[in-house]
């Protein structure tokens, strides 16, 4: 045990796993905002990739035309 450990650290370390697993259920401030931003970014990058693939497929189709 290092000198930087606090009483809280020792107590948390001793908490049963099931109780400790419940701790993350409390969302951190701003968590929903960052989740929304990340989901929105998924949509944007997915759309861009789909656009790029579609344009390339159209271009590639000339090979078989």
């Amino acid at each position, binding site marked *: 045990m290092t000198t*930087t*450990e*606090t009483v*809280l*650290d020792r107590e*948390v*370390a001793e908490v049963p796993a099931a109780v400790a697993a419940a*701790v*993350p*259920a409390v*969302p*951190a*401030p*701003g*968590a929903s*905002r*960052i*989740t929304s*931003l*990340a*989901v929105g*970014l*998924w949509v*944007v*990058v997915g759309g*861009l*990739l789909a*656009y*790029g*693939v579609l*344009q*390339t*497929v159209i*271009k*590639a*189709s*000339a*090979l*078989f*035309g």
Partner: protein
Amino acid sequence: MNLLDRSRTVAAPGYNRWLVPPAALAVHLSIGQVYAFSVFKNPLLDRFGTSHTSIAVIFSIAIVMLGLSAAFGGTWMERNGPRKAMALSATFWVSGFLIAALGVSLGQLWIVYLGYGVVGGIGLGIGYISPVSTLIKWFPDRPGLATGLAIMGFGGGAMVASPLTARLLEAYAPDPADAIVPTMLTLAAIYAVLMTAGASVIRVPAPGWLPAGYVPRQKKGAMQSLADVRVAKAVRTPQFYLLWIVLFTNVTAGIGILEQASPMIQDFFSTVTPASAAGFVGLLSLANMAGRFGWSTFSDRLGRKPTYVMYLGLGALLYGSLALFGASASVALFVTITFVIVSFYGGGFATVPAYLKDLFGSLEVGAIHGRLLTAWSAAGVAGPLIVNAIADARSAQGVTGADLYLPSLVVMSCVLAVGFLANLAVRPVHARYHEAPAAATTTPTTAPTTAPTTPSELVAAGAKES
């Protein structure tokens, strides 16, 4: 506390790791534009009235700077975290466009070299490595999938930028040469927004975090190690240089096809028109991108060393078969073989960070990956030189048709064979290079008090999540 600090990006407990890949993709989709630079080639030729080589140098400088900045910036990135690195990358990449636009506006080609080549190239290198190591840390159970996801974006970036740039050049002015500046400014604005969004969303896992139900196991004699090796020690191992050769040969051989895809298929088959050849180039772009994600993900099942045995061994055989039977084969068979070769090229790019993670651990994998990318820079110069020198020599001898490419194909097959042997020589890293377990669990941050290593700090880090 600075918004860009690594400590501000530590994810709260329970953070969904699937929210991280779009940040990586946003950055790689932006910097992947560099592979669509050829769209600017003709307008720049008209604007400056110079040689093809003078314009091609812009791209070459960017690729060389990519390797150098990744090599020198990797350690800094590991210390400062991915958000600061992504922000820096965005600053350099966008500034590169702005400076290049100024150069075009003033009619000074050297300013374009400085802007897109040097400044933009630095943004490329930092941006390329910054999300890769973060994703590896989020997906320790599937590092091939993680690196494939990120690096697929780089291939996809060119697919997006190529038609987009062509449309902007058409839209802004009747003469594309007059539309270069507004097109560059528009792209700079788009990439500034996209990369900033990526930097905002990026999160690193708390130290010691593992996916639910995942227990790291090490098989006896396996290539994969649970130990970490720092970059300073990694570059002293033979494994690093063997992988350098593997990446160099893989990239050089891929360029052998990509550099001459359009004229090659037309010279092999007289029935193929220029329009169909352009379609062939598009198909190879799809192969490149699909290989990055597909083969890299597949390497999680097959293992990294056997995957490279396939890329390099089968690749060498396919190159050899093109040299021997390409001219007598059907167009469909030729296209199929080249499709597989280029998918291996893309797969080789995307799988190498996962290979590095297997050998050196995830502690400083971004910095080690950065050093390894000098192989890309070297291949980016050597590959076209080899291919064009052979083609020019054959052409000067009066050789035409498929025979023009036979020596190139044989040379590329031999190049891949060298990489194949280098891959076979890769063995697990000796334990003397490993970090002690205690050191390996902390990140080399300059602000150690903010790195959550105890439960109370983890709770505090979670509360900082924003």
